[in-house]
């Protein structure tokens, strides 16, 4: 193992190389671009024995990745924002085909107006597609998740494609130390590719022709069953990875000081680190706070969260995205998970378009929530918008 100071994007590229990916197809989009630039360089220099298809669009990027994977190759693509949205149709097709594929998403806001900074709307938009969706907090975790993604998606109990999300710029372009294992260590840990079928003249397999409504229904059911199985597989892989490389994260949810906490922050992505700092600060002020960091948005860690949160005084969910006309996506799922409990809940929409959210911002929102709970008892506030500082007054006026 070697410590390297790498951007999140380059950390993922290193993992892709170590996984011995055979086909890569990608189209550049900020802030994903430097990831595939690095991969192209690795291929051109002969460091990675793979075919790089420099496609003309993201729609084609995933279609080509799927084609390669269906033909039996370990395949990878990466994108962001509008690119991910443009791919959306092919995401459904890939998951429905049950073909293991790994994709990195450098999460970014969606226009208009143009904004290249972090937000989770792009990846949240893919929740229903049948992809396993993981979110990293650190560059190291983006690297680790990428390696794990091949193992998880290629597990016969799963056979679903997987997204590794890393926050645009905040991880994708930030340089931080990343522990890189040797090729030999990775080869020992990551088995050769497995997949449910290959399409070749020998196999004579036809994928995707018309199915009866009943058969179609049952194929959908089988994806849900695979998602359920994936929870077990994710936890196993996390533990095995820990044994091999010394890093385990706690499976689908990372619990930071949440065991003895009265109030828990539910959050995902890089700003979970800031939330942990906020929890430390809150404890200094006498509030027993913790963080339940969602590592996997899909499959949703229902059991883990219920187990960890159902006896708390309050749960406050921070979403860096919103389902317009409804709530933050993490809030909706968390609220459904806590149905029937006596836990106070608040949903907070913050940090859209890369607006900086700092530990003290999170702390004061939690303090406000704690105050409300102490004052009135059971609180249910599904959405509050943490407006940018210079617009904070506007929020008060419109009563958000």
């Amino acid at each position, binding site marked *: 193992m070697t*410590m*390297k*100071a790498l951007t999140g994007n380059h950390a993922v590229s290193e993992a892709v190389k170590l996984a011995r990916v055979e086909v890569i197809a990608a189209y550049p989009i*900020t*802030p994903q671009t430097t990831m595939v630039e690095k991969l192209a360089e690795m291929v051109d220099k002969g460091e990675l024995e793979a075919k790089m298809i420099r496609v003309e669009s993201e729609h084609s990027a995933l279609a080509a990745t799927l084609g390669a994977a269906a033909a039996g190759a370990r395949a990878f693509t990466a994108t962001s924002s509008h690119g991910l949205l443009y791919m959306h149709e092919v995401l459904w097709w890939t998951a429905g085909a049950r073909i293991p594929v790994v994709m990195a998403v450098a999460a970014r806001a969606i226009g208009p107006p*143009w904004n*290249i*900074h972090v937000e989770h709307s792009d990846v949240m938009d893919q929740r229903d597609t049948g992809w396993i969706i993981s979110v990293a*907090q*650190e560059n190291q975790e983006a690297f680790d998740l990428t390696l794990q993604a091949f193992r998880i998606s290629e597990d016969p109990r799963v056979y679903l494609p997987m997204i590794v999300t890393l*926050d645009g*710029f*905040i*991880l994708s*372009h*930030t*340089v*931080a*130390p990343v522990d890189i294992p040797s090729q030999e260590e990775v080869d020992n840990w990551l088995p050769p590719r497995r997949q449910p079928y290959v399409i070749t003249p020998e196999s004579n397999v036809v994928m995707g022709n018309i199915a009866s409504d009943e058969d179609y229904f049952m194929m959908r059911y089988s994806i849900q069953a695979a998602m359920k199985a994936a929870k077990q597989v994710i936890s196993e892989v996390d533990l095995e990875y820990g044994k091999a490389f010394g890093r385990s994260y706690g499976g689908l949810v990372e619990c930071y000081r949440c065991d003895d906490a009265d109030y828990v922050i539910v959050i995902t992505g*890089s*700003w*979970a*680190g*800031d939330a*942990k*700092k906020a929890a430390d600060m809150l404890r200094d002020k006498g509030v027993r706070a913790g963080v339940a960091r969602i590592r996997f948005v899909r499959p949703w860690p229902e059991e883990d969260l219920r187990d960890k949160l159902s006896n708390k005084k309050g749960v406050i969910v921070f979403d860096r995205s919103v389902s317009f006309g409804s709530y933050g996506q993490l809030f909706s799922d968390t609220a459904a998970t806590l149905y029937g409990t006596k836990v106070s809940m608040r949903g907070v929409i913050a940090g859209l378009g890369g607006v*900086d*959210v*700092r*530990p003290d911002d999170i702390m004061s929102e939690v303090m406000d929530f704690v105050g409300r709970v102490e004052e009135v008892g059971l609180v249910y506030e599904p959405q509050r918008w943490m407006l940018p500082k210079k617009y904070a007054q506007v929020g008060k006026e419109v009563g958000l």
Partner: protein
Amino acid sequence: MYTELRFHGRGGQGAVTAATILARAALFEGKWAQAIPEFGAERRGAPVRVYARISDKPIQVHSTVVEPDIVVVLDYELLKLVDVTEGLKPEGIVVLNSPVNTSPFPKFRTFCVNATRIAKDLNLVVSGWPTVNTAMVGALAKASGVVSIDSVVKAISEYFSSPSLAKANSDAAVKAFEEITQC
């Protein structure tokens, strides 16, 4: 030890590289570091900020640095455009690329070095611009002590694949390390 830094430069001037080299140098010393570019729609010449953190322990925080311990200014002319000491802690320091040896910031400990001249002397000029970033990291090492000059030179040597560029940039860092003084 926990130090937060902010770099001020212009688009194309290499502030991101400066922070990256700093982070790599810190890594050589067994420390944890972050180098965080702040990206916008800025193009070449526009003011840019880059943040960095160095710590004995792993760093979890990812928000931007608003109360830095150290501010590094790569371009003297930026002082006309940007309040570089905004949020700087009272005991904080400024590391300034300056043609003169006087501090414009009476409230802060300021260190001056003529990195532009050092870069020009070493022929470190790209597309007409002196590249002062490596010199400024060397100067920073002296002024703040967050990393050693040896680590900076090692990080620079590793960063540039061309041996001649690695040499010239290392020389710039060492020269700036030697020349910088409190002003």
